[in-house]
């Protein structure tokens, strides 16, 4: 039986070249089991690793992975997956850096957000997944996330979810004051003024300075503030896209149209529930958070396409989202890869969608069941229609810095000043650029030279 399977897999591998895209798309459909799909020769190795069994440790904070791990262990009884929440975002990256530096306690799989992936990949901390056949997954994922996990010719993670941006808005607030839902950023500014004039306690949005949001806005505006070629890095936070964002946002700050509330705080959840924060320009993973954290807003929220810089445009960008990566120090890389393939491109995807996650796989984003799902929380709206459209319209060519984790950590010391003092956003962006340049050069990169 085992011999037969093996022969079948090898024969399958011969066809792989031609069928790669079709099979990969098929294996990501949710119903298809990845381990049994003969896509490349390395699947044979994967199959035997899964049959031999073993134990892997996964560091991730994404809640839907719990069910994925349980299903995976049920499917491959000899495999044990130790799922550990080693902290969210930055806390986990620090722990990961520490473990890698210490050379022990490194997990076999780690959740790494797209903005942080280059830092770990270029630092040599992550295994290049092309040796496990990850290249065959080309076409499985939407372009934004797929570009984010690639560095040069290497693939350093598989996209787990994605955050194409959209405008989440509280319809009851817009209706109450007769304000039209903005389709351009100019209309957004007008709507902000109208809303705040009608109700001084209400704001179009909250913002106290958020690096992820700012870079996503610049991304949508067509900016390319970071260009990375190996260790040669260029930073220009005064390019056209950055300037467009800074100019618009400066007006909102100057006219005090932004609620001085930090995202994810309890005040934020409060504001989203009571109508004092009327919109969120945010990633497509937001619906699950609204449903669980803002019960009071049920039936009031809707999703619209992201406002545009030029009327009639369709440009969007990615906001947040994570990949699963395999650290180089893992002693069980094959099994680790099999797990992330299962979770990100196999049966795990549907499990995670059912749990409220927003996928990065093209086939799921285009499936009728996904797109036509109605959301009670959003008054019966087919929210995924808007979000999936946004995923297809992400502006191409964006790059993060190979030290973006550091850069984002000093965002509030530099750009953040514009929100609380007389500094302008443009001055803040300049200061952010300067400290990023200094840090990059200190780290051995050649930045702006």
């Amino acid at each position, binding site marked *: 039986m085992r011999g037969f399977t093996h022969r079948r897999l090898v024969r399958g591998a011969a066809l792989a070249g031609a069928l790669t895209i079709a099979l990969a798309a098929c294996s990501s459909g949710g119903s298809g089991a990845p381990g049994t799909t003969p896509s490349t020769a390395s699947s044979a190795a994967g199959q035997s690793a899964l049959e031999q069994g073993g134990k892997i440790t996964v560091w991730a904070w994404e809640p839907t992975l719990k069910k994925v791990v349980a299903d995976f262990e049920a499917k491959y009884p000899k495999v044990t997956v130790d799922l550990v929440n080693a902290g*969210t975002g930055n806390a986990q990256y620090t722990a990961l850096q520490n473990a890698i530096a210490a050379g022990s306690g490194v997990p076999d799989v780690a959740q790494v957000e797209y903005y942080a992936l280059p830092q770990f990949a270029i630092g040599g901390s992550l295994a290049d997944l092309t040796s496990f056949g990850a290249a065959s997954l080309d076409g499985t994922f939407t372009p934004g996330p797929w570009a984010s996990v690639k560095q040069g010719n290497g693939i350093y993670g598989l996209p787990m979810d994605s955050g194409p941006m959209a405008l989440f808005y509280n319809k009851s607030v817009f209706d109450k004051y007769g304000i039209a839902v903005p389709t351009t950023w100019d209309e957004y500014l007008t709507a902000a003024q109208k809303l705040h004039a009608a109700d001084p306690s209400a704001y179009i949005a909250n913002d106290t300075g958020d690096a992820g949001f700012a870079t996503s806005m610049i991304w949508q505006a067509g900016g390319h503030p970071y260009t990375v070629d190996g260790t040669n890095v260029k930073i220009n936070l005064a390019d056209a896209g950055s300037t467009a964002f800074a100019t618009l946002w400066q007006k909102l700050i100057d006219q005090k149209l932004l609620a001085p509330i930090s995202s994810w705080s309890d005040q934020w959840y409060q504001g989203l529930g009571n109508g004092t924060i009327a919109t969120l320009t945010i990633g497509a993973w937001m619906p699950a*958070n609204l449903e669980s954290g803002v019960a009071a807003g049920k039936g009031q929220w809707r999703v619209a396409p992201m406002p545009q810089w030029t009327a009639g445009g369709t440009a969007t960008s990615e906001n947040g989202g994570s990949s699963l990566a395999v650290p180089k120090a893992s002693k069980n890389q094959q099994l680790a890869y099999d797990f992330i393939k299962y979770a990100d491109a196999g049966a795990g995807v549907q499990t995670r969608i059912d749990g409220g*996650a927003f996928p990065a796989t093209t086939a799921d984003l285009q499936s009728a069941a996904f797109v036509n799902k109605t959301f009670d929380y959003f008054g019966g709206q087919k929210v995924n229609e808007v979000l999936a459209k946004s995923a297809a319209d992400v502006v191409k060519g964006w790059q993060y810095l190979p030290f973006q984790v550091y850069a984002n950590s000093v965002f509030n010391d530099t750009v953040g000043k514009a929100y609380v003092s007389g500094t302008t956003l443009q001055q803040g962006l300049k200061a952010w650029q300067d400290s990023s340049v200094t840090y990059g050069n200190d780290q051995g990169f050649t930045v702006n030279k």
Partner: protein
Amino acid sequence: MTIPSTSTSTSTERSRTAARPMMRSRRPPSVDRPRRNVILTLVTGVVLVYTLVPLAWLVINATKTQPSLFGSFGLWFSGHFALWDNIVQTVTYDHGIFLRWLLNTVLYVVAGAGGATLLAVLGGYALAKFSFPGKRAVFAIVIGAVAVPGTALAVPTFLMFSRMGLTNTPWAVIIPSLISPFGLYLMWTFASEAIPTELLEAARMDGASELRTFVKISLPLLGPGIVTVLLFTMVATWNNYFLPLIMLKDPTWYPLTLGLNAWNAQAATAGGEAIFNLVITASLLTILPLVTAFLVLQRFWQSGLAAGSVKE
């Protein structure tokens, strides 16, 4: 013999002499009937309110459901009284992980703070009452160690423990907690003041062994000092955040501080479940043991001080 007179008796003495010429007609103020000072009372009152408001906020908000938490004024009760529901949810959420964290914390406190106190008492006594070569060097090192914050040592300790394969185990939290330079220093000064050398000499003359002298004579005299050190190390271990943050990755070994933070971080995660009401209720439950420990131990502490003052 000279026993250090406590500050209470000295200040009473001083205020008595100072008050006499001014208030001839009235009875002089005493500890039971102190002199009133409006400004000091006001300042104390402000500090009291400042200290108690967060506590009141915590108690009040632990009684609210998550929606009413967002929809109501923070310093007053609102809506359905949900304290019991919150407590039940807190201890059952995620298969009762909160109770596991509580047990972990108790383990770290008993082993860490208990061990630190024991070591501080033994070391402090030895340094105060025995002379041996290198004592000055030990003194210098201990004083120096008091100045080094534990946070600064956390990362080097992590790298060392990682080599030894101790990270992600309870030992990684317990072993560093055993060292309390400040506790040692406190016990040292306390022991040299509270235990008269003559008493030790008398015991030795009567033929008591060093261990017997320590257990039967010195230890009872050190009581108040031990309680003080125990309180300090207990609070430090109970609230310890940075060390376990660096050392532990497995939530099953988390102390309460890390666990609460993990719960709080859930609200900031894509797809995460916001459980602010549980974070608040769990925080309240977390401080209760410390409050209790303070109230109970404070009694011993005060009685120890009072007992010292009447021995002349």
